């Protein structure tokens, strides 16, 4: 288990009430959300040509093989882009603004990118290129339970320990 994990409604980055993540209706992406429950970060990969692919699809965009798997990757990346939201796009967010959303590039997964929240000070200066580490945020009391993959600047992690 990752040493930075939250499982307390008070410590979820955003309040509960936002849509619960679910796989596609046809099952696509189920392995990703199951792995997140186990605090493991996985990215889709082609078994034939080894191309990384994200978001998931039913076919490899490079060699058109249908033989795909979800491969574990180190929960580390760099900030590729970011935004600070001030307008509450959902009633649940009324008292949660501003908040930070980052796009994280995973160099060890062929540059695949993941969206998550950047934990910590909501007014912090965000630096594109900064190293971040995944934090698995459990929502055990949701129906159904799920786990989000959040991010934290590595320098902050080291300062805390």
């Amino acid at each position: 288990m990752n040493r930075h994990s939250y499982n307390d409604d008070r410590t979820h980055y955003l309040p509960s009430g936002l849509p619960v993540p679910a796989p596609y209706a046809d099952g696509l992406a189920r392995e990703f959300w199951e792995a997140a429950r186990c605090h493991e970060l996985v990215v889709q990969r082609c078994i034939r040509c080894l191309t990384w692919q994200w978001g998931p699809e039913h076919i490899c965009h490079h060699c058109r093989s249908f033989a795909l798997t979800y491969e574990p990757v180190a929960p580390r990346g760099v900030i590729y882009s970011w935004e600070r939201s001030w307008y509450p796009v959902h009633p649940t967010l009324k008292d949660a603004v501003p908040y930070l959303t980052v796009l994280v590039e995973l160099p060890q997964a062929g540059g695949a990118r993941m969206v998550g929240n950047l934990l910590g000070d909501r007014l912090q200066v965000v630096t594109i290129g900064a190293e971040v580490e995944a934090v698995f945020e459990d929502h055990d009391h949701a129906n159904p339970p799920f786990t989000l993959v959040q991010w934290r600047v590595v320098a902050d992690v080291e300062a805390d320990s």
Partner: protein
Amino acid sequence: MVDRTLRGKTAIIGVGETRYYKRGDAPDPEFKMALEAILLACEDAGIDAREVDGFVSYSNDRNDPPRIAAALGLPDLRCSTMVWGGGGGGGSGAVANAAAAVATGLADTVVVFRGLAQGQFRRYGQGARTQTASGAGAFTAPYGLMSPAQSFAMRVRRFIWEHHIGQEALRAIALTSYAHAQRNPRAVMYGRPLTSEGYDDSRWIVEPFHLYDCCLENDGAAAVIVTSAERAKDMKQKPAYVLAAVQGSAYRQAATAHNAPDYATSNFKTLAPRLYAMAGIEPQDVDVLQCYENFTGGVMMSIVEHGFCRPQEVNEFFTPANFFFDGGRLPLNTSGGNLAECYMHGLELVIEAVRQIRGTSSCQVPDVKISMVVSGPMVQPVSSSIYCAEPNP
């Protein structure tokens, strides 16, 4: 096969718009407004509505052509076509489909229309109120990334970082639209000028977008009528010949969870060369540009990707003076556009481009020969179109 081009083969001969309302304020249902805009376009063109034999729309318009044809009592519906995906990015693509239908003889008189009543239906600017986010939405919505502004701010932030763009570049686009809207009585923001201080002091929606970087949300409907160039010569209005109209989407731009390989883009890189090749012109030949503003950052990248300036020239080029209709180097969004006239999903931009050819804009650029429209940056597909006072300039 010879001559596989739309260049100069068709023209827009009529335009129609309902009154434009603040979101939720329209007194009429969306379908009724769509009919009204279509009839106004017929009247403007000087044709009987029964001559219409085709309809094209985009962004999954809810008003379907068979119902419209039945409502209007049309004798023969020969073309019923939707641009798939892309929201406002389908605007010029819809003109392309109408022109293609006319040029190939599928139909003779094709209406391109869009009806929008966000009061009657869900708003664009807010997230869906669903219990679960399945599929691609699962990778964004639970993290509070739910609105178009948030989807596009992420791309724009990356472009701004890569090219060291200042906030003033985005501000210039907003100030231009508001300045032009002050001369346009149809504009929702007519009589509500915007100053640099007003922009700077406005609240953030999502950084780097202030309130004034975001399009309006409105109710109304708009329509234009496309027919053959031969027929257009003898009609009531001066024709706006369709010199080029193309759509497209570059490599894996629709990859989900923000994974388009080329990310900091408005998605016009593959389209713009095809657009200019079909038209047989260069960017410097364009007299006036209507460039879809979902958000100012998209306008910025669109102008760059259509070759009007290089990324490293944005800070210098993007000034209100350069975009002003009177003496600007690139007169931009001369009706006030999506930011200040009305968010009619960019079809109002096509209508303004036609007005510039006719010489009837409230911000008329002198002697317009080439009038261009860019539809829907940062979506998939996007589209662009070029109109001309002559079928073969």
